[in-house]
């Protein structure tokens, strides 16, 4: 269909070597203040997001010399100000496979969490960056100062994904090729609280539901698991994919779960019932299960839900980024991207960032859309109500179907 306008480029510093440059992960801080990406070669770059955006807008209209002047002046003005966010390059000492920002400020009004600080300062909003490394080690950094705070050692293999609970409790979950997920309490000096076992193979990715009550983990051998994060038990296994499942993301109201797989598909599930609600294919005609289960050149690498709960973005090996609306079968916008590995929406949903094989990050303006009042109400209701409760509501069946995202 149509191409995106407003494509913004931010190439990372060039490196010569062929491998070790991969950008496996990109992340935005929950309050939108920072953007981080693994630059390859064991470093992570942290940039203040608003300055980054300003630079992009200026790149488009002015020439290169002007923008380098801007960079210089930014460094000078940063000198004396403590509160202004600064750029950092962090050397992690090992290949970085995963990144996650953790904030002591809850993203949304969800469960009440009684926060007591031991190591960290009282009354200060803590912003942390967790980096998952090739060796299985996890390093926790302070975003404002760039200093190393904690070293979490327990995984025996690559830490492929990291995610913080969105309720500000600083609970971190790590997913590893050692077939386990581990739950760490960063308020308690990084104490490891639980090991989640159940995967028979590599765990590729994990994601918390917005109310922090559920965790989804996906992995090799078609695995999609849902865990109860109050009791740390497995709720159910979601069956349907034909190949390794490599990415997952919840919708902002927690009513939908998107999973991306090497079987060329993105599935949208109802996490409360386990039913598949929608399917987004990247190969036409859709492949047979045998083809889907092998090397089909259309592996979907990443999927991300936008903040309006209506759009998702997917990255596939056919060198395309696609933006989909959840109520349409075909993508609303596409853009070319070679060797894309990971993607993430910015905190306000206006920009999609995608990391590539050579350590660069590319940005696109996301499709802007005023949601219907019906959808806004649906999100408001589904934030606090699982599907089972929705079924009990005294409303006409057409409205029930709409609320269950079954239209």
């Amino acid at each position, binding site marked *: 269909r149509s191409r995106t306008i407003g494509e913004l480029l931010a190439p990372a510093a060039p490196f010569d070597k062929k491998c070790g440059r991969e950008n496996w992960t990109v992340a935005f801080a929950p309050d939108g203040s920072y953007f981080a990406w693994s630059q390859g070669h064991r470093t992570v770059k942290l940039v203040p997001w608003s300055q980054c955006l300003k630079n992009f807008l200026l790149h488009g209209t002015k020439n290169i010399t002007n923008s380098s002047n801007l960079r210089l002046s930014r460094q000078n003005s940063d000198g004396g100000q403590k509160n202004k966010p600064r750029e950092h390059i962090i050397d992690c000492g090992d290949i970085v496979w995963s990144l996650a920002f953790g904030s002591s400020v809850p993203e949304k009004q969800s469960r009440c969490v009684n926060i007591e600080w031991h190591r960290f300062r009282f009354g200060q909003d803590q912003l942390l960056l967790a980096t998952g490394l090739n060796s299985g080690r996890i390093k926790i950094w302070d975003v404002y100062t760039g200093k190393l705070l904690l070293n979490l050692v327990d995984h025996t293999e690559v830490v492929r994904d990291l995610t913080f609970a969105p309720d500000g409790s600083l609970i971190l979950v790590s997913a590893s090729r050692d077939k386990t997920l581990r739950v760490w309490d960063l308020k308690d000096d990084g104490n490891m609280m639980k090991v989640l076992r159940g995967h028979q193979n590599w765990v590729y990715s994990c994601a918390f539901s917005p109310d922090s009550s559920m965790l989804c983990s996906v992995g090799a051998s078609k695995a999609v698991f849902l865990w109860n994060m109050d009791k740390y038990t497995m709720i159910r296994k979601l069956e349907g994919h034909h190949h390794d499942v490599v990415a997952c993301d919840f919708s902002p109201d927690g009513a939908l779960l998107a999973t991306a797989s090497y079987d060329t598909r993105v599935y949208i599930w109802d996490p409360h019932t386990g039913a598949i609600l929608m399917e987004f294919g990247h190969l036409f005609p859709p492949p047979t299960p045998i083809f889907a289960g092998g090397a089909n050149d259309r592996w979907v690498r990443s999927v991300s839900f936008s903040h309006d709960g209506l759009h998702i973005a997917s990255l596939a090996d056919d060198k395309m980024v696609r933006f989909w609306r959840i109520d349409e079968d075909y993508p609303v916008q596409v853009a070319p991207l070679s060797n894309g590995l990971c993607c993430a929406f910015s905190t306000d949903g206006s920009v999609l960032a995608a990391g590539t094989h050579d350590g660069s990050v590319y940005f696109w303006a996301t499709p802007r*859309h005023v949601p*219907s*009042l*019906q959808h*806004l*109400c649906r999100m408001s*209701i589904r934030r*606090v109500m699982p599907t089972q409760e929705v079924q009990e*509501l005294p409303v006409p069946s*057409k409205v029930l179907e709409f609320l269950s995202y079954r239209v």
Partner: protein
Amino acid sequence: MYVKLISSDGCEFIVKREHALTSGPVKTMLSGPGQFAENKTNEVSFREIPSRVLSKVCMYFTYKIQYTNSSKEIPEFRIAPEIPLELLMAANFLDC
């Protein structure tokens, strides 16, 4: 230029005609061929929509007109926790 939307409990909301036309059914009721009384008086009565819901609907009309086809960032549209279900029913009826 302006139309009047009347809630079930008798509150009258005066909104720009262009805003009210966000809703297909309202548009039909206001511009249909003479069958509807509303056509003559530029008024629509909603016997099932209470004022607390209709007021929010009017706010949505403004929100939609303001941010559609605009380059400004779209802010969150807040919905108080007591009304989303009734608001959904009204929005469903009004197809907006």
